């Protein structure tokens, strides 16, 4: 059976290759910091499960120290704009094929490969068919791309390093935020926030309840970076006792739209790093390190209108 461990091993190998190539990149004045950072991540992917939780914690502290000092930008040799234009002319639409292999494999993986069994054991670990298919799709796409383009052997790893260095320390930001969410949950932050909101706002009608619930979902999502963390807290504190219990709103409508009100918060916060910070780095926006980068600013108007729209929809549909 192919499990997630194989994908983690693959990721470990790729990060290890980036660490070694970073160390050899004399054009990067901070090459040793890059090498250390990607090397620690390689170690985490390869051996993370064999370490104790405390050792993993120390590994994260080391990553944070290196990331805090700051990574440099590696300078792997790549093609010039003229060469790229010529290559695009020559290969044409064929260039899209490897790019499409990854989503198509992920799609087939979940729909078809996940259902294949060999001698009673499933081919893919049924818990994570999509991620395993993603790993498989990457291998397939690199193979097809190499056959099509015929670049130097190290080109995929070196070009990948060019993009990874553009993302830099932000690469582990989503994972760090998920871990912070776990500590918040363990320390009971959610219950305290929920109790605070329920105690301070007078719930004297469905309208004030709807506004408080939706606003609470959005604000707590802005803080946590994730509507999934806000939902149990706000729903237990406001929606269940007041909107559904006292004012007899429709439970399915209140909860479904409440979650979507939380998503409005996701669009406005740098804490939702994989949606809002990672693309700013990938697209090399000049304001990528600001709290409200270009991506978030582009989203705020829609997010605010949608927040009000969700309040209106919940109020008129559920009551």
């Amino acid at each position: 059976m192919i499990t997630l461990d194989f994908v983690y091993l693959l990721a470990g190998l790729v990060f290890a290759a980036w660490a070694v190539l970073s160390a050899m990149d004399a054009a990067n004045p901070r090459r040793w910091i890059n090498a250390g950072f990607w090397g620690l991540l390689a170690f985490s992917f390869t051996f993370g499960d064999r370490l104790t939780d405390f050792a993993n914690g120390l590994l994260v502290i080391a990553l944070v120290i290196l990331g805090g000092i700051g990574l440099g930008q590696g300078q792997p040799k790549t093609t010039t704009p003229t060469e790229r234009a010529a290559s695009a002319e020559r290969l044409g639409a064929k260039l899209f094929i490897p790019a499409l292999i990854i989503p198509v494999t992920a799609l087939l993986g979940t729909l078809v490969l996940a259902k294949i069994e060999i001698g009673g054991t499933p081919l893919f670990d049924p818990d994570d068919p999509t991620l395993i298919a993603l790993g498989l799709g990457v291998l397939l796409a690199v193979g097809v791309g190499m056959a099509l383009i015929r670049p130097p052997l190290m080109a995929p790893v070196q070009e990948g390093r060019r993009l990874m260095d553009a993302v830099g320390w932000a690469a582990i930001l989503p994972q760090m935020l998920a871990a912070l969410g776990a500590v918040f949950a363990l320390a009971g932050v959610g219950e305290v926030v929920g109790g605070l909101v329920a105690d301070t706002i007078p719930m004297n009608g469905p309208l004030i309840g709807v506004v408080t619930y939706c606003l609470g979902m959005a604000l707590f999502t802005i803080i946590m970076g994730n509507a999934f963390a806000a939902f149990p807290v706000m729903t237990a504190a406001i929606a269940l006792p007041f909107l559904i219990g006292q004012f007899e709103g429709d439970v399915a409508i209140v909860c479904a739209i409440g979650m979507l009100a939380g998503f409005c918060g996701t669009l406005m916060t740098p804490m939702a790093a994989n949606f809002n910070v990672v693309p700013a780095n990938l697209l090399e926006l000049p304001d990528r390190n600001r709290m409200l980068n270009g991506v978030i600013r582009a989203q705020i108007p829609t997010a605010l209108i949608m927040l009000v729209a969700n309040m209106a929809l919940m109020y008129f549909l559920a009551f």
Partner: protein
Amino acid sequence: MLVLLGIAVVVVGFLARINPLVVILTAAIVTGLTGGLGAVETISAFGGAFNDNRYISIVWLVLPVIGLLERAGLQEQARRLISSVRGATTGRLLLAYFFARQVTAALGQTKLGGHPQMVRPLIAPMAEAAAETRHGPIPDATRFRIRSHAAAADNIGLFFGEDIFIAIASILLIKGFLEQNGIIVQPLELSVWAIPTAIVALLVHGTRLVLFDRRIAREVAAGEGDASARSTTSSGAGE
């Protein structure tokens, strides 16, 4: 109450523009200590959760593929493709992508988009090229605004599409939470109520994207007199 200090650390840290990795680790330690966990226990909890969430970072595996294709001119090809489509504008292109993202996400196919896989190599360069085909060289500020909108279309389309699918994580989370509280609902009962919001999102963001074309035209016209604000090369996201 003291346990909320961790949240204060996050807010202050972000405002003071301290490296977010440092801010998050500090917030976790403050929260753990004020929440009654010991130092070792806090570091262990954080390390364990970091390890359990490695799957989030699996997405970086696509970078070798994207980098390889960029080396061979993928962005240039995306530009060539869009320049050959008559009537293509930045706003219309992003609207088409936004709608496709919403519909595929509603069918459960959330992995068909994404920033490393689609936005950086294809959507952002196409959106820039559509503006350049129409207006010639565009100011840098406009170029970065177009890129930001390409990422925004991906996020907003995903968020207000995926909940229509019955087996998406957020719907299952709602169902599970309600079950724990003794309320049984079927996923379909929840997901159908994501449809009104999805329609409003299409109207709201669709309108903004249509208006975005006018804004680009205005910004290009304003930048015309100021040569220093203009970028003369059509450099892609890779430069």
